[in-house]
């Protein structure tokens, strides 16, 4: 690794990725066509992956792309293509409850601000560069030694969900 985390290139990259992520998240909500929404969700996920990379968390970057962009979003797009798009084009996208939405947004913002204020002492972020370049091995060791039990519990949970989905699909055939 040649560039240090504090170099100007890194912060410029961060702002590019952050802007991309926020802009495509907004576009994803406002597009009328679901396929376009899916494409903007993909760019949001890719920009987030870029931020992981910029933090030198290479493993997270790659896993984000393989799992979310390469796996889950392909299935999303697959399902969207199977449904009838014309129906969704004529649905009303936004309802008119402006005032309720405004109050809810205000409450949520206030909650977030209070949370930040209460926890402000922990906001002092350390040096993000103090990471071993071989962090893939570290992730593996943490998962399979220290957090073995939670890892296995999560695996069994996913397996149960998968078998449940298969059973539900089979009953209808």
């Amino acid at each position, binding site marked *: 690794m*040649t560039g240090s985390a504090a170099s100007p290139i890194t912060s410029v990259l961060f702002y590019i990725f952050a802007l991309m992520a926020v802009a495509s998240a907004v576009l994803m909500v406002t597009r009328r*066509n679901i*396929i*376009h929404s899916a*494409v903007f969700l*993909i760019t949001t996920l890719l920009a987030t992956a870029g931020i992981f990379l910029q933090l030198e968390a*290479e*493993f997270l*970057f*790659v*896993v984000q*792309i*393989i799992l979310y*962009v*390469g*796996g889950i979003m*392909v*299935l999303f*797009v*697959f399902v969207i*293509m*199977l449904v009838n798009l014309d129906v969704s084009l004529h649905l009303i996208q936004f309802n008119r409850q402006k005032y309720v939405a405004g109050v809810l947004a205000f409450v949520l913002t206030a909650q977030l601000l209070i949370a930040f204020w209460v926890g402000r002492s922990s906001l002092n972020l350390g040096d993000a560069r103090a990471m071993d*370049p*071989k*962090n*893939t091995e570290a992730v593996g060791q943490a998962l399979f030694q220290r957090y073995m039990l939670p890892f296995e519990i999560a695996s069994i949970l996913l397996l149960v969900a998968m078998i449940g989905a298969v059973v539900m699909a089979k009953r209808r055939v």
Partner: protein
Amino acid sequence: MNHLIPPSILPYVLPVLYGVVIVAVLPLLAGYIVLLERKVMADMQARLGPMRVGPHGLLQPIADALKLLIKEDIIPVKADLFLFWCAPVLSVTMALLAYAAIPFGPAFQIADLNVGLLFILAISSLGIYGIVLGGWASNSHYSLLGALRSAAQLVSYETAAGLALVSALMLAGSLSMKDIVQAQYDQGVWFIFVVPVGFFIYLVGSIAETNRAPFDLPEAESELVAGYMTEYSGFRWALYFLGEYANMVVVASIATTLFLGGWLRPFARYQDHLFGTSVELLDILPTILFLGVAVYSFWLAPKQPVKIQKIVMALVGGLCLVLAVGMAGALFAPDAVRMGVHGAFWFLAKVFTYIYAFLWIRFTFPRYRFDQLMRLGWHFLIPLALVNVVVVGTTIVLQQNWDWRHPMLTAIVTTAIMLGVAAFLGREDKQHQAAVEAPEP
């Protein structure tokens, strides 16, 4: 050179140079793989193949590229313009981006990432969006069906191919492409000889991932006209083709690095110096090969029917002669240059051998039906790959604990077990299919 470039950008010079070389050379390479494909197909069907443009059709790819560039660009009226424009570009970009982590030689690599292999897999899995979005944006039933088939096929076979790679990864103990090749040098064996079943699963999975026959259902011409690229023409169509062939080179490079020893020459640890010089005996193989091709081209040159073809054939011979001289010259160069040139030669030789296997399979097997494709993936390849991971992992641990050092023993034991599992899976599948297809009583 170090005096000319300021030190702050020095580390970026070589990677940028390599990147420019790869992006410039790859379209040409893809064109010549198309020619190779047509020639191999012709050979297997006892025909001559393209013969008109240049001697033995050697200039055909350039003529094709020119033709595609100046063709009319047709966009369907009801197409989704933005995505229709985006999709082929996406397909090519993702294929080219994957080259960033491929080691063509010990030094010829743009970036040696700690997660190199995962990076290549991640980027090449994004190429699917080129196909899916292009198929949807065309607003045509054939295109949409091709895109849907492609998405289902890719998700199914990526799993099997990824699991097959795990078996080689466990042997190497690293995700960095460079370290994987180094591990094969240190252990003195290419991983194809230790985990042949993993290589076989990856071979099948990679054919399906690149949408090539017998798994080319997304573009099955007898059912879907041309699948996802039915509505594409001219240069956009050429971009799809470029993406497909670039992807072929990517999967071939992954297989070469993980299973076929990357840039290592055959018998990399065997050292015998030629006539007391510093030249190693096996390092003269590339020189001999290029000399042979050069002599053959010169011998063919006077036999060409037209004068211009005679000249071009002689030029081909001259090119091979230059390459032979370069290969021989590299033997006496400093170690880094010698390793770089010869490494690149062996790497590309293995990549093309793998691609030749692709072509060979394409012209040998008939296309699968879609349900057969899914059954092969889910009922046979994925279970086989899962068992393979467990068997290989167990053998590696046993090896470490029992001081059981010889890799060939691992190979024989794991392969025997895996063949048994494959036979069992095959029989199960056959019985299951017989039960499904049996007439109702």
